[in-house]
């Protein structure tokens, strides 16, 4: 296994978190995963504030972002990231239940790097997560300043 980039998951539903982690674990991608449960917490993590004041300042290699989130929703998080000089290079993958075209259009307009609709079928779901994890955390060369485990 090569270097493994850190994955930041932003997901409010604990079941989805569990299923996502299970899928990542299956392919040994779960070691470098941070889970935040709403948009505010995600932004706290990225800006090293609140509960994440003490963490080192590097960016995650990829951010798996749900759209329907409490407090600050996914599109707002995306907008904040893409309009911040320090954060805009972080690859963001929207991972959502919705196939709504307007969400898709809004996400791409804000500069999302990928848009994935969570499949209902668990096999497909696991596959999707695995491929996302492998691609963004392993294959893809993340921008400079990302956290990587040697």
């Amino acid at each position, binding site marked *: 296994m090569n270097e493994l980039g850190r994955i930041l998951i932003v997901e409010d539903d604990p079941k989805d978190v569990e299923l996502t982690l299970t899928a990542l674990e299956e392919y040994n991608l779960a070691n470098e995963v941070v889970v935040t449960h709403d948009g505010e917490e995600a932004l706290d993590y990225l800006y090293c504030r609140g509960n994440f004041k003490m963490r080192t300042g590097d960016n995650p290699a990829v951010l798996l972002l749900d759209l329907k989130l409490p407090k600050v929703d996914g599109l707002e998080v995306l907008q904040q990231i893409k309009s911040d000089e320090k954060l805009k290079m972080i690859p963001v993958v929207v991972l959502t239940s919705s196939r709504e075209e307007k969400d898709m259009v809004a996400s791409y307009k804000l500069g999302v790097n990928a848009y994935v609709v969570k499949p209902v*079928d668990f096999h497909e779901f696991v596959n999707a997560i695995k491929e996302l994890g492998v691609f963004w955390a392993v294959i893809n060369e993340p921008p400079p300043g990302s956290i990587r485990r040697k």
Partner: protein
Amino acid sequence: MNHNQIHRFWRSAAQCLLGSIVLAVLTFVCFRLNASVTTAALLYLIVVVLASLTGSFVLSAVLSITAILFLDYFFTAPFFRLTLSEPLDAVALVTFLGTALVITSLMSKRKRAEEVLREQANLLNLTHDTIFVRDMSNVITYWNRGAQELYGWTAEEAIGKQAHQFLQTVFPLPIDEIRAELLRTDRWEGELTHTKADGTRVVVASRWSLQRDERQQPVAMLETNNDITERKRAEQEIRKLNAELEQRVIERTDELKATNKELEAFAYSVSHDLRAPLRHMAGYAELLQKSAASILDEKSRRYMTMILEAAKRMGDLIDDLLAFSRIGRAEAQKTMVSLEQLVKEALNEVRPETDGRNIVWRIGALPNLYGDRSMLRLALVNLISNAIKFTRTRPQAEIEIGCVDGKENETVVFIRDNGVGFDMKYVNKLFGVFQRLHRAEEFEGTGIGLATVQRIINRHGGRVWAEGLVDRGATLYFSVPKS
């Protein structure tokens, strides 16, 4: 002779008789008083003038001649003797006659003219239109019966009044501009508001004409007015109704928009929130199946499979329903599209369903259609996919796609198959949402496909219909208007 002429004749005769008697008596009195010939002549002239003022030319002439005859025959010597042999008498007689004739003819001419005028004025009184005449300082000089009826003032009350003050006229333009136009073109038309004798307001369509004398100097203005108060009121009513209608349309549109928005929010929520628990059910069932595989018996494993299948079906249903509702909400973007190309694309999309099948395709000449490309494609995919599905039991499936010829206003497309068909008595159920004519174990499906087709075609202003026979195949048609 009609009644009027008879009447006029007897009146003239009576006047003749009366005038003659008056003349004779006056002449008699004259000579009794020893008046001179000059006095008699003067008196005679006065009487002739007076007579001609009241009578016609003929009447005056008759009067004159009668008077001369009376003079000659009744009042001869000892008072006076008219001798035609004496030159002076002859001259006097000729002068009398001549003067009388000239004066009567002049007078009767004036009288005729006055009569004509009076007749014309009477004619103006016959019309229902309101007509009055103003001189150049706007003083009313003529007032017809229509004016009296409309405004409630008699001619006697109105004539001599300053028109604009009298009627409290409200002009649509400054009065100077109206006057300028009248002097320039000799006419003006517009709407005025007047006040009647009882104080109510009346709106009139007013037409002014300028009268000029022989030297082209303006002398009077003829004003013809039509009461349009009622018409204006009706117009205003219509305008008000229109405005109300428009307002109602706006309100309804807003309501519809709100409903649409709610629907959209609902669909959005379904799309997000209903799929998540479903995914969890499927996910955990899968995990359970994996972790408990060793301890599960055959029966339990079947239960797990059933749970997973149900979740999968629920997912399909939600996806189809969302797609169906999206057609209702999405804006149709119509262009000219090649049906041939669309069918090709649709066939590509359904290719996985034809694996391992023996299908004979018959695709006829296909025209261009005016419509929303992606919607029409979806409709074709649904129809072709249906045809593939319902011919599954045939060793050799035959599917024909073509266009019905000879339609002027619409393009009619059909998809015919030799599949299991359907009973025509259920044809009404074919296009309903969640309506299925086959059991799930025979042919899978959500029952939304043909409903989606119908919705797409309806949005194009077309129709869908079907013909079929049990076990003898089905033909599905749709029409799209030619733009």
